[in-house]
């Protein structure tokens, strides 16, 4: 088990996890949003490192990625800033496989580990192609979080659940990030994952309002909120304003847990 597995199982003993997502380097003071998110009740932070071709992202995160890249953001720069920021909760990096592939798998795993990063989400790294990366990352105790989609058939779910580390990222719908309404198929995906093992299941993709988070938290172990927060950063909201908004998600998730 990785450090992230232990940490997130410990979280599960206490409450449903709230996982805010931010785009690294979007503003000069982007790490303040991470600190605010922890104040607002985050249990885990997902930090997006922008890539030129974000195949899995909708317009909001694309726009944020473009802006961050124009500011000159790099993986090394992001990790440097993360290493200097005391957050008190684990951090996972979300990026595309080319960003780590370009640096060499062992070297990239070392950079992540040295910065204290607990895991990665690489949405375009399929289960089938993931073994070399998982070996490199595993050697440095960096967890590799895999996704399950509404389209994933049962036998694949079984293999993904057996392979993922930390948690399973359950996509609530067949869509890219931020383009959604309603509750999607979150409950269905969560229940399918549960049949295959006891790994924590976090729901993401299209969770934009506290009410949706509350609903998802009835069944899932955690909820990931991305585009809805990134849009607020793009709109110029301050870390304090974000913290207030994130605490609404915190409350909604805790309510959802009580309704379970």
């Amino acid at each position, binding site marked *: 088990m990785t450090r992230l597995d232990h940490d997130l199982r410990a979280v599960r003993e206490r409450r449903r996890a709230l996982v805010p997502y931010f785009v690294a380097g979007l503003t000069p003071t982007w790490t303040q949003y991470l600190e605010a998110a922890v104040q607002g009740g985050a249990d885990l932070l997902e930090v997006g490192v922008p*890539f*030129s*071709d*974000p*195949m*899995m992202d*909708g*317009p909001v995160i*694309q726009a944020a990625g*473009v802006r961050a*890249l124009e500011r000159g953001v*790099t*993986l090394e720069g992001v990790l440097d800033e993360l290493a200097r920021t005391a957050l008190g909760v684990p951090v996972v990096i979300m990026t*595309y*496989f*080319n*960003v780590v*592939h*370009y*640096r060499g798998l062992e070297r990239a795993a070392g950079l992540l580990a040295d910065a204290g990063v607990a895991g990665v989400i690489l*949405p*375009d*790294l*399929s*289960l*089938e*192609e993931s073994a070399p990366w998982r070996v490199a990352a595993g050697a440095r105790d960096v967890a590799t979080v*895999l*996704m*399950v*989609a*509404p*389209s*994933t*058939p049962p036998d*694949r779910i079984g293999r*993904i659940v057996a392979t993922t580390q930390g948690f399973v990222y359950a*996509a609530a719908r*067949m*869509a*890219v990030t931020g*383009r959604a309404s309603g509750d999607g198929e979150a409950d269905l995906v969560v229940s399918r994952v549960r049949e295959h093992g006891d790994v924590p299941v976090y729901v993401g993709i299209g969770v934009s309002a506290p009410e949706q988070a509350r609903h998802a938290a009835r069944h899932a172990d955690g909820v990931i909120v991305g585009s809805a927060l990134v849009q607020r950063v793009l709109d110029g909201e301050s870390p304090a304003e974000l913290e207030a908004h994130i605490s609404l998600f915190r409350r909604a998730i805790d309510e959802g847990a009580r309704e379970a």
Partner: protein
Amino acid sequence: MTHVMGVPDAGGHFGDFGGRYVPEALMPACLEVESAFREAWSDPDFVNEFRETLRLFGGRPTPVTPLERLSEHLGLRVFAKREDLAHTGSHKINNVVGQALLTRRMGKRRVIAETGAGQHGVATATAAARLGLDCTVFMGELDTQRQALNVFRMELLGARVVPVTSGSRTLKDAVNEAMREWVTCVDDTHYCLGSVMGPHPFPWMVREFQSIIGTEAAEQLRALGVEEPDLVVACVGGGSNAAGIFAGFADSRADLVGVEAAGGSAVGSGVPGVLHGMRSMILQDDHGQVEEAESISAGLDYPGIGPEHAHLASIGRARYTRAADDEVIDALGLLSRLEGIIPALETAHAVAWLLREAASIPSGSTVLLNLSGRGDKDVAQVRSLLEDRR
């Protein structure tokens, strides 16, 4: 005998390249396409329908034309495989007929596609109309301006064209957007990818559909008394026309040459990377971000190359070189005047390479040029480029 361009491994790898790097949401769709294609391609009825559709509708077989005046000009024996004479004006029809038939076989009612120059978009819209499928084409906004007539052609054919405003607003961004769309509609929609790129099985499947070019050409050359050409030359963006003609000669002694755009030379200037579902040679900056390709030809404006080409380059079976915009325009003019064939700007890259290198090719060598597309779509652009020169 094992074939140089054979079947990739179970994961879709050609040596170190290829594979399947897609979001989990798309994995089941890719697996479905793979199993449907395997089954169809070993079904004589499907193969027969594919060939018959290309014969009765697509204008195949396209001829091999001896280019006599160019041959005399260069001191070589140059032959052209005339994909410019295929329906819709390029080799693209071969692939889309295959994929449209496969779409129907899978029970889906809609296709989506990306397009650069518009050739693949027009071809997809054409095949979709023929088979009664809905069609949506994603095209970089910049390309919709460069190729406005092709946008109108697609609309005439009943397709919807969606301008893509993200990223560099060219082909690579159109692929991203098509992938994003596919995630939302895999149940009833097939993604008709336009080149030998993307996740497995596309690089292999598209090459198989395009290999009719090389198979026909080998036979036609023999009928013209050429047992085996010394050189086979084709332009390369993603690389589907090159893969198609190389497939007919990879097991021969012919020297295989792929010509990339100077500003989009993935083999020459790229490094191994992962983009659009495949591991291949990709143009990247010092941080692993994909760089924008730059070429006068929208169809070669792509920062990657099909994984099988990366493999053929790595094992030395094919070599990849480049042609610059200026020499491409000259080549287009020369072929037009000498042979009465106006090639597409993409195709003119292969011609440009031949003009540049002819002096170093042993005199009398036999050269097969893949004339992948006709230049009608480019004449307005070429006119303004020539006016700029004056």
